[in-house]
């Protein structure tokens, strides 16, 4: 199995296609010998993980690419078993502590303790520390973050942390201050187009700049999405036609349909239908914040400028609320109802 996303993933800091200055700085950092804790953040599909892997290779050499999946079980104080999947090489371990749900603190502490308690065998040729990569740190509970802060200090001699997250806003400031923050901005559309075209070259297919741009534009500047979509288009039809539809995830299409339903009719009945659609999305494990975000994006495209500010404001309000609350459907529905009522008033004022 080789999806293009993986096949053409750069493995070397030199081979990265964009944010070249950043690559250079990271290289200097490694060669300087001192290596701080790091917090790498940026939007999804910007290449955070790819860059971190390149960095690790720079640190430890090709050995770091020999990965294996491990299944670790933890015992909670209440004797319940907790399974976490980790990906590890000889030099680093990567895990997503938020998989552990409410017990994430335990996982973070145990793993760090375990890694930190053993030194590298050969400190002459190797680095003296191992690296622990924690993904989705912004999903960690406050408890776990506090635990993390303490362990970061304790084991600094034997291990370094690389924290990955989308946004630093949910990470405690003590942790932020202990890390070197590295922001990876999303690639611009031309950058994505360049990447797509280089892939096409390597695959031996031809793609027009126009088509590549269309793919890049529909990807929300998410490179992973763009490449996946590109490959899906290739599977669907090749040679490419200029008006070929860009492949999108089913749920995105579904959200677009929902948006047009909302714009089409504003009534209690329609709201009920939309609720059914929201449930359908939630049942498919689409996170509520992604639903609200993509719905807002779709709606923004087709409404008047005067409504846009209000729409975004309400979207932000309800997105915040669903983070605080327990049942996202309440807030999704309130958001849709609010927009419907706004839009209805707007249409009435126009005299429809």
């Amino acid at each position: 199995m080789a999806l293009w996303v993986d096949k053409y993933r750069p493995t070397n800091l030199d081979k990265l296609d964009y944010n070249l200055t950043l690559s250079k700085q990271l290289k200097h950092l490694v060669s300087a010998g001192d290596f701080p804790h790091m917090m790498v953040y940026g939007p999804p599909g910007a290449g955070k993980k790819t860059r971190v892997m390149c960095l690790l290779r720079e640190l430890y050499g090709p050995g770091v690419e020999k990965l294996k999946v491990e299944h670790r079980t933890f015992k909670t104080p209440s004797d319940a078993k907790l399974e976490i999947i980790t990906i590890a090489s000889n030099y680093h371990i990567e895990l997503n502590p938020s998989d552990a749900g409410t017990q994430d603190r335990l996982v973070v502490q145990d793993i760090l303790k375990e890694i930190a308690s053993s030194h590298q065998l050969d400190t002459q040729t190797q680095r003296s520390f191992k690296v622990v990569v924690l993904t989705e740190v912004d999903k960690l509970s406050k408890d776990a973050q506090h635990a993390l802060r303490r362990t970061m200090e304790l084991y600094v001699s034997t291990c370094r942390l690389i924290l990955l997250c989308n946004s630093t806003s949910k990470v405690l400031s003590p942790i932020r201050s202990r890390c070197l923050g590295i922001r990876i901005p999303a690639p611009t559309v031309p950058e994505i187009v360049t990447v797509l075209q280089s892939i096409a070259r390597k695959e031996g297919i031809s793609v027009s700049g126009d088509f590549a741009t269309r793919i890049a534009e529909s990807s929300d500047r998410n490179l992973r999405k763009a490449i996946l979509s590109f490959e899906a288009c290739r599977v669907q039809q090749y040679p490419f036609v200029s008006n070929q539809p860009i492949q999108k995830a089913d749920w995105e299409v579904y959200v677009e349909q929902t948006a047009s339903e909302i714009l089409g009719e504003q009534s209690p009945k329609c709201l009920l239908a939309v609720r059914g659609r929201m449930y359908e999305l939630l049942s498919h494990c689409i996170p509520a914040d992604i639903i609200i975000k993509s719905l807002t994006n779709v709606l923004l495209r087709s409404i008047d400028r005067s409504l846009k500010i209000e729409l975004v404001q309400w979207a932000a309000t309800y997105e915040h609320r669903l983070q605080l609350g327990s049942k996202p459907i309440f807030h999704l529905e309130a958001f849709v109802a609010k927009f419907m009522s706004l839009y209805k008033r707007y249409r009435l004022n126009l005299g429809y």
Partner: protein
Amino acid sequence: MSSVVDMLRRQQPRPAATSSTAAAPDVVVPSSVASAIAREAPADPAPRATTTTAAATHARSSQPKARSSTPSSSSAAASSSSSAASDPAQSPLSANAALLATLPWVERFAPVAAAELCVHKKRIEEVEAWIQIAIQQAGRRAGATNGKAHKVLLLTGPPGAGKTALIRSLASSLRFEICEWVNPVRESWKHSMASASTAAMLSASGTSEERASNQEANLSTVVAFQEFLGRSDRYNTVAVEANQTSTTSSNAGLLGVLPTVGQADGSSPSNLGKVILVEDMPHLVPSQYASFHDVVRNAAAHARYPVIFIISDTRNGESEVRNLFPLDVLETLPGYNAPRVHRISFNAVSQTALVKAITRVHQLALRSSSILEVPQLDKSEIATLALTSSGDVRAAINALQFYCLEQKVLQRRRFAEMETSKTRQVEPNSNGRSTSTGTKRSLQEENASSEVRLDRHSKVRIITRKSGGAKFSPDSDAEDCVVIDDSDDETTQDFIPARKIDDNPEDQSTLDGSDDDASGDNESTEPGWLKRNAPGARRPLAKQIPDAKDLSVAVVAAPTSLLATGRDTSLFLFHALGKILNCKRGPACLPMEELLTTESNRRRELLMNPEEVIDQTHVSPELFVAYLHQNYSEFYADLDDISHAADHLSDADLLLGGWRNKDSLQSHASLVAARGIAYERQHPAPQSWRPLHKPEWFASVRAQRTSRDTFRSLFLVPRALSQGLDADSPTPFHMLPVRSVITELLPIVGRFPAPRTGLNPRQMSFLHFFARFTTGGRATIAKLDENDNDERDEPPVDPTALVAASSSLASAPAIPPPITESSTRQTATVNAPLYMLDDDIEEFD
């Protein structure tokens, strides 16, 4: 209750008859004979009372292991030699009647004829038809009945709906005997009981079997139950006549075998049908359920006599029914065209039927007791009694008895006071009265009534002086009337002469016609008032209730003493939701509301009290809010209203969200939701019947969890990767957070041909299933049943189910895990029209 009965019995100087019953704690009593006697009693002057189970008939005694009892209360009458069977109370001199008088009214005046029952006619017919066929079939094995197995009947319904009473009444009309299972009691206790009544036991007539008690105690309940079924199936009950006592008593003590006096099938002493009644469900621990199911299945297939199970609904939903009679037990067997277990569910008794029942019992009580025992009640009081007992006949009649007791005390006190206050100056202090009756009476009327009051005081004195005792009218045959009136305003503050007391035809027959008309408008005329106190007329003791149907008003207006007797009402979720979603409002704003400056903020007075409704619904706030959210939008017509209400629900969810403050904020959450929904409903949707649904949320969460777990086991767990991939090396699915995998990777990868992705068929079928979106339809949402209460219907997540789910994905791709929570209780309710309490009908119509 039954222990009280026993206690009372023991206190009585026992004649032979009663002692035999009290000391007959064991097993099967030959009730066929008893009931036969009971029916023949009026014609038969010879005292044969000794065989009957006498007054204990309806007392659900806890001590006997299994007891068969006569179906009607008339057995009691039978024991009192020459009295009319239909009216047990008319033989006050008999010793048994004295005993009878100590019984609670529920037992004492239990219904005999089907007409006296509070059960809906259709339900009666249904049960009757079933039992008739069952009795005809009795003796034949299920196989020989043309595929129509009428062997096991299951009656469900709220307590006090008349389930047992119906069976007992049918027993007398269809002439069958009832053999009842009663849970075995502990050994030690039994021994002491036995020794206490050894003498009585020896002379015991009917109870001819002593169980192998020491064995029994060690047996599991299921085994004991099975044995009971088998035994009552195989043998007839013993028929013993009163004068045969000595001969049969020797049979007592046989172990494990029923004494078989009339062994041969046909030569059963009475030739009556027999029905096995299981009301006291065997106490089971969950591990025994399976074997209980086997017993039921076995009974359905092989039993000779029909078995009737009666289970009361509790506010915990139907969990017990579901445990004891799961779908696979209820289902129709192959080759049969009727379900294995026929199920009939009862509804709570309607207001009108309750009023009827209370009136009947009250009349019986009036007739049976001496004059001062039972006070006259007026219609509004009976209506209030009916209202406060929430569809439970038993509770209603208990409340009636209790209330009458209280009134009796009050009356006696009044008597005493009147004697002492003969010289006291009576003042018309009508101005100080409260006017909380809900009706606004004009000042004139008030004055008029105060005049009446004055008059009455003087009158009362006259009357009481005249009568001296209580007996007032010599010409009244059965309906004696108490003629004391109140002279203190504390107890009956809002005394108004009842204007419409004479609606009841029973009463009118005893009234002279002129009285009716006179009392209509002309309250203050003396003759009218005088006549109202004439024999047969009813006298109001409580306030007049303007509209008995309106619960809120009625309850507010009812005197506290009436409320005290009422059953602690708990609302089924269905009704609670109805009350809030339909939030009825009064005609005008409350004065407080008028202060609001903005017109749009004012609302008319709310007729329901959300706090109270929530209080009476025993559901967690979280679940209640979820139910409200599921159902609120259909009750709105205006989008802006909905939007505001949705905001309130969103607020409520915030209150439920933080786990730190959850405990203290939870209750507020349901209030915010309920009041918010009620407040914003300015443009209600047109009134119509709307089914209520269960929250989709939980099903959605379940689907989410299943999908996630399936994804995990298929893509992330190494052994799932064994095909075609190096088990150790990570796949792209490992390299990303699950969230990104699900939203970005999976939907696209699902479109690639399998060779390109290297996924196995199971993984691919999961991807296909996962990518399928349907436009959500309401048809699939489980409806909320009237009797349902809480239950989240969340089956415990066990790993085997997941494996099953994932394997089913592999074998039959793209089949979502079926959500079958609704199908469980369809069987019963399909043919039974939903019956609702009166106030709900009003709401939903």
